């Protein structure tokens, strides 16, 4: 008989459009983070480190990268005879077919998967946060309280509380009320989007509300359980937890990793973060290279100068090139004599010799100022930047560009140069 005490359902279908071109070809959980990792590595590693060995990953938006990354789960030891990782895309049904229309709707469409494992508890996770959390401790808390639902919460500064879903609790952690993005918050406990449900409670709530369009946990399922009088508890989490939903928060979270003793420490022995590493060899640093305050992944060949940067695996950085305050992702090749300031250069890019990035005045981005800001230059994956051009601040380049795309050899600050058709 198959029996798992707790299984996890990881919502990984969202696009994360505020990451701009980084998510034009892949879902947000598949975006690189911290040199060799991808965002989804954090919840997946948390699962296996917490003893949760059955994980359903719900995919929808551009799942190819995610699928190849997860594979059969070997890097996370989630290749199991029973359980392990299962990728769950939306599927066609005999009478109707629909996409995953909301977080809870996606889970509802996979009731059958969960039933296979005969679970007592179901852990709902999202694939877009950077944190280390022991879900087993949260489960103990859930059991101790005889809760039906436990919601992980995080104290945030009161002035920021209005951006979150806020939980109001009594002295024992029991949730008495909640407010979605309140104007005048009554508490500073923000929901982290991590839930433990009793299986029976979850199933009943999903089935009852199945007809609700865009069925959502925060908007529909949690309020439904609360109205029913189910005991809801808030589990307070005080560790590092970072939402990397915008380019600037993504950049910041990466940069925090290069502090001497970072708040989020990847070097801790007993809570390892696992990832698929295709590139094993060590990195080579040439006689002329400079590497200061940086983290660098396997298999890089560094001939230039790197300051305050996060460099992925298999990256080549040419001679006399300066990379500062930048994120360079896997397998990108940067020529010689380049200058890159505050760049986010995605995977498999080719930056030709003598390219200057992040120079010029601070001008607001012409198309998406809410995405491309803070002086960053963003280059989408598999792009090509021709020799000797300069690219201004708050600009974005995506696609195989040629010299004529850069009038006078430069792309002014705030410009958007996207040559990949509608693939934004």
């Amino acid at each position, binding site marked *: 008989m198959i029996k798992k005490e707790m299984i996890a359902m990881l919502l990984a279908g969202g696009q994360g459009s505020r990451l701009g071109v980084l998510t034009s070809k892949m879902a947000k959980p598949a975006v690189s983070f911290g040199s060799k990792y991808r965002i989804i590595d954090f919840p997946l590693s948390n699962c296996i480190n917490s003893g949760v060995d059955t994980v359903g990953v719900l995919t929808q938006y551009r799942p190819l990268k995610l699928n190849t990354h997860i594979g059969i789960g070997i890097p996370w030891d989630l290749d199991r005879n029973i359980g392990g990782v299962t990728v769950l895309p939306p599927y066609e049904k005999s009478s109707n077919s629909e996409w995953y229309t909301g977080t809870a709707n996606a889970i509802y469409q996979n009731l059958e998967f969960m039933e296979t494992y005969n679970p007592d508890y179901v852990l709902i996770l999202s694939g877009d946060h950077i944190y280390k959390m022991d879900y087993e401790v949260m489960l103990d808390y859930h059991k101790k309280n005889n809760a039906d639902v436990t919601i992980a919460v995080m104290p945030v500064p009161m002035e920021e509380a209005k951006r979150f879903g806020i939980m109001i609790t009594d002295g024992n952690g029991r949730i008495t009320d909640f407010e979605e993005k309140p104007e005048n918050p009554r508490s500073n406990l923000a929901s982290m989007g991590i839930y433990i449900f009793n299986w029976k409670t979850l199933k009943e709530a999903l089935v009852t509300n199945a007809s609700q369009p865009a069925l959502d946990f925060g908007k529909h399922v949690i309020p439904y359980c609360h109205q029913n009088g189910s005991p809801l508890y808030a589990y307070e989490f005080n560790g590092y937890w970072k939402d990397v939903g915008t380019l600037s928060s993504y950049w910041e979270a990466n940069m925090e990793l*290069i502090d001497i003793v970072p708040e989020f420490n990847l070097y801790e022995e007993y809570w390892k973060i*696992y990832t698929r590493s295709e590139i094993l*060899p*060590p990195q080579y640093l040439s006689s002329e290279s400079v590497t*200061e305050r940086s983290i*660098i992944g*396997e298999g890089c060949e560094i001939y230039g100068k790197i300051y305050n940067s996060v460099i992925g695996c298999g990256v080549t950085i040419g001679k006399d090139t300066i990379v500062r305050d930048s994120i360079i992702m896997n397998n990108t090749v940067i020529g010689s004599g380049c200058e890159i300031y505050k760049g986010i250069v995605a995977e498999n890019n080719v930056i030709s010799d003598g390219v200057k990035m992040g120079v010029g005045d601070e001008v607001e981005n012409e198309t998406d100022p809410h995405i491309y800001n803070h002086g960053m230059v963003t280059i989408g994956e598999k792009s090509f930047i021709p020799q000797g051009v300069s690219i201004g601040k708050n600009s974005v380049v995506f696609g195989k560009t040629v010299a004529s795309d850069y009038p006078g050899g430069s792309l002014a600050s705030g410009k958007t140069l996207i040559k990949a058709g509608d693939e934004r």
Partner: protein
Amino acid sequence: MRAVGIILAGGNNHRIRELTTKRATCALPIAGSYRSIDFALSNMSNAHINKVAVFTQYNAGSLNEHLSSSKWWDFGRKQGGLFVITPSVTAESNAWYRGTADAIAQNLSFLKSSHEPYVVISSGDCVYKLDYNKLLEYHIDKKADITVVCKDMPSDFNLERFGTVKIGKDDRIEEFEEKPVVAKSNTVSCGIYVMRRRLLIEMIERCIEEDRYDFVNDVLVRYKDMKHICGYKMTYYWSNIASVDDYFRTNMDFLRPEIRDYFFKQYPDIYSKVDDHPPAKYNVGAAVHNSLISCGCIVNSVVEDSVVFKKAYIGSNCYIKNSIVLNDVYIGDNTHIENCIVESHSTIRANSYYKGEGGIQIVTEQNDRYVI
């Protein structure tokens, strides 16, 4: 693939000195992220040899740990797989492996129960890339009984530790000399052989009858005139880890771009056990020149012309020059290390000074380590 694989990994070698007090030569760390057996294993895997036996004997702890899962080399298969074979007491024998042929003899059932027509035998302490399919094609083409992989060494190369061969007409090996004092040829045998499985079984059975134990002397040398033995020349990199100097040089070879390109960038890849270390980290004060740094390292000072293996910590104001720092080494502040091999898991106290004078010094320091 039409062959089973055998990797001989049981040997010890006193020329590797202290480095083998911890591990067999086949488990010696190579090029920052690998161990020497990875090369033979990856070659097997890349040639689609699905059933591979590794014969271990001497100090196999590290090796067993390294091979604890076969999935890294893609040997986790229903058909075949990776068989790590240690000597065991049986009804017929209670001896250790008395030689390479004896190791095969004591495990003859492995060969007998296989159905593949050929066997590829390789030693586990060589760094090389070889397409065994091409080797097998050559073997069949030449109608050879045994094919021995050979390599021409430079004239100044010290051949004393190797088997040399003289290749005559039509690639046939005419002469074998095991560890000659004055060699007649500078072509060495690389310790890689291919032959029919049935023939190997036959010859090994004869060895058993005659109480002979060594594959080279009792099979190759003894039958060189009776059997058709051919030499297949390897053209590019091959290095045997037979002494501390070899070990040092082989690692330092990876500082050359063409060697890295050959092993790391060109198809096919070399695989190894994945360790899940975070990226290497360079703090203020790090200045690394002409060196290889592996994952999990934290560097705070100057490193020149060196190979640093996984998870090493190098404190502030150190100077590491022309050295090899093995896995999980902690080097305290203000330390000078030059011309050394720092043994894995060593903890070097702050303000230490090590310099290999007139050779490579092996540094082993087992101090208490205080980790924050």
